[in-house]
């Protein structure tokens, strides 16, 4: 008899954390649809927004795991560039597009593996370990590309991030659909699998997790590998977008990725965060930047607004939690 209410409660608990960022996203869209031009909510612009979100979005999916575990990955931007260069080189060396794609993803996974080993095995603070990788991966990307952009021929890889997909009923490039698909899968993994629960547990109270027999070292390692794999895939999208592997691309992108996750309501001290919320956070940022461009605001205005939004999102979240603690 109490079964439905029990289920409703559980569903509500699942949904509750997503409401905040969703409201924020609606507010941003609402604001710019009022003060912006009619072009803003047009199909072409929405397609463009989706295309511009794919790199940060994919990065944010992986970053959510790391941040929920209480860690941080600063190397994402560099890994994206490295993966893009690796994809381009593999493709130019004659690999079929799919193999080139996997090479890019694997390069990201490799960086994540090193990050994970440094953090989980050698107990190096995530901030430092991944700061090191930020430098190494960027340098390695430049070395591989001989300090220049690696241009490639067109292939279906280029179509991943297109705004005009074939067939046209796809509306947006297959890369964007891939992001949603993987986002759904990883969201499920974080909420419903043992790995996911253990990730939350480590971020919430590592000592307890250890004591309860959670394989802390392995989970941490996996979390960084996941983040690396997604950064790798984001690198493939960068390659797709530019039709080239640019070793200088995505500089500072890790901060946008972290911002998306934080806007989505995750705490940098670990234990909270959702993949769906992070994706909403990523979209919120693109809608915001795009809206500023729509209004022809200067670049520096956008930077300031984004900065303010990040702080505001966290402040609002704090208020919400304080209120909950009172009631």
């Amino acid at each position, binding site marked *: 008899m109490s079964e439905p209410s029990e289920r409703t409660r559980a569903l509500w608990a699942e949904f509750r954390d997503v409401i905040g960022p969703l409201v924020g996203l609606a507010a941003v869209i609402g604001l710019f649809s009022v003060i912006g031009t009619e072009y803003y909510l047009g199909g072409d612009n929405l397609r463009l927004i989706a295309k511009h979100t794919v790199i940060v979005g994919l990065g944010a999916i992986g970053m959510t795991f790391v941040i929920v575990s209480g860690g941080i990955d600063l190397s994402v931007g560099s890994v994206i560039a490295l993966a893009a260069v690796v994809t381009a080189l593999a493709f130019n060396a004659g690999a079929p597009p799919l193999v080139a794609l996997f090479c890019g993803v694997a390069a990201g996974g490799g960086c994540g593996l090193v990050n994970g080993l440094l953090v989980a095995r050698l107990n190096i603070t995530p901030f430092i370990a991944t700061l090191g990788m930020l430098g190494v991966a960027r340098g390695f990307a430049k070395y591989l590309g001989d300090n220049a952009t690696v241009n490639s021929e067109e292939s279906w890889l280029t179509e991943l991030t297109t705004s005009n997909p074939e067939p046209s009923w796809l509306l947006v490039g297959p890369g964007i659909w891939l992001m949603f698909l993987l986002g759904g899968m990883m969201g499920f993994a974080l909420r419903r699998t043992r790995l996911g629960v253990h990730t939350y547990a480590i971020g919430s109270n590592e000592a307890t997790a250890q004591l309860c027999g959670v394989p802390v070292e392995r989970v941490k390692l996996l979390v960084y590998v996941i983040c690396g794999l997604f950064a790798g895939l984001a690198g493939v999208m960068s390659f797709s977008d530019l039709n080239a592997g640019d070793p200088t691309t995505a500089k500072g992108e890790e901060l946008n990725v972290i911002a998306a996750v934080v806007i989505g309501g995750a705490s940098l001290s670990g*234990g909270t965060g959702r993949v769906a919320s992070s994706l909403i956070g990523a979209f919120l940022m693109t809608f915001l930047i795009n809206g500023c461009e729509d209004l022809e605001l200067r670049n520096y205005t956008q930077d300031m607004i984004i900065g303010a939004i990040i702080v505001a999102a966290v402040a609002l979240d704090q208020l919400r939690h304080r209120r909950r603690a009172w009631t």
Partner: protein
Amino acid sequence: MTGNAHEVALRMEGVRKRFGGVVALDGVTLEVERGEVHALVGENGAGKSTLMKVLSGALRPDAGEMTLGGVPFRPTGPLDARRAGVAMIYQELNLALDLTVEQNVMLGREEASFGVVRTHAMRPKVEEALSVLDQPGLRPDTRVAELAPGTRQLVEIARALVGDARILVMDEPTSSLSSEETEALFAVIERLRARRVSIVYISHFLEEIQRIADRFTVLRDGRTVGTGRVGDTSIEGIVELMVGRKLDEVFPAIDSEPGEVLLEVDRLAGVALPRDATFALRRGEILGIAGIVGAGRTELLRAIFGLDAVKSGRVRVAAAESLARATPHRRLGQGVGLVSEDRKEEGLALELSITNNLTLSRLEPYARGGVLSEARRRDAARRWAGELAIRFDHPDQPAGTLSGGNQQKVAIARLLHHDVDVLLLDEPTRGIDVGSKVQVYRLLADLARAGKAILVVSSYLPELFGICHRIAVMHRGVLSDVRPTSEWTEHELMHVATTGETAGV
């Protein structure tokens, strides 16, 4: 007790452990029967924690035998001991606050197929464990962060139950519980006993032990100095075993004469708590504030000290009423200091050295041109530590390595070093052993004699009656009249604390 009641669940025999030159355990024997609540008592430093670390697998003993249900037991680590059926319920809660009750209870033993957690398969187990706890508000899907602190501990017990724990070690389980929560915990302990789980119950509250425990073992200086049935022994008897001396030596003579008023609080109200508090504290006086946990006593001290906002009312320090908003900085400048009830979180910086902790609030005397003289700070730390009989190896030693009683003395020493006249002390003897309590009481008596004014918040009534000139009671944010200690009885005091009614008493 029925049938095979005297079946031994755990036996530790001749357990020895030394750290460098210090002998922590010197041949301890502990025997716990199945389905009994066995109280383990002793001063801090007596070896209780070390013994429990040996039991829980965190430490390997140098010598001695352990058997669990008659089978030799040599845990290789905490996880191993847990799997063998020894579960610790720690003072510092071991919960992942962001996870749900169910996720916490099943942490590390989730049932999953292809990595996907099978909530439905685990639910009956969780429900069964929760049913033992019998808390209507405790649902599997509730996030632990949303539970009251007192309820959180029960989640740990549920975790132990799901893990088929045979020995449950509870370390000061009631130290941060309200009286209602304590009752709920005792009810749970009764049910656990009925399920033939053995409980090793560590507590400084001997009244509790008398109520809940079947037998007790007393440790002193790393040795078992006594064991017996609780029903056959008086509290005084247990205390005398613990401290190795007579009880009337516990409370010092309070012979200081109160002088002029140093702190005057007039109809003080905070944002939520306190709601109405009026009293005057005199030089050389120890004033006690009783009340149940959550009545607003801590908030009263915080409001006086300028940590919490004041909504209405006045605080006057030594006749100099400052119009500026009170801040801890201003209050310290006026000679008012606070020692928090929460040593770990607020009272001390446990990672910092004794020297740093002691001198942190007043560094000016050691600075020349902005550069601190470490040598002189260390000397000062040594001097104060000596004066308060703080036991330590070196002034650079982290405060966290001291025993609870010595940590408390460092916190008080900091105020004295700051040369305050008014000391606001929140539960100054919480979680410290009887021997250290005695030292803290003596220290307070000495301070009062030296002309300090002391406000003591305490939940331990005998202590208030033992050291205070006058006592007031707080009930739901409202402070009662202040009366001389001799005009209160424990019964009256509890009556006011729980009902707020003073009329007719």
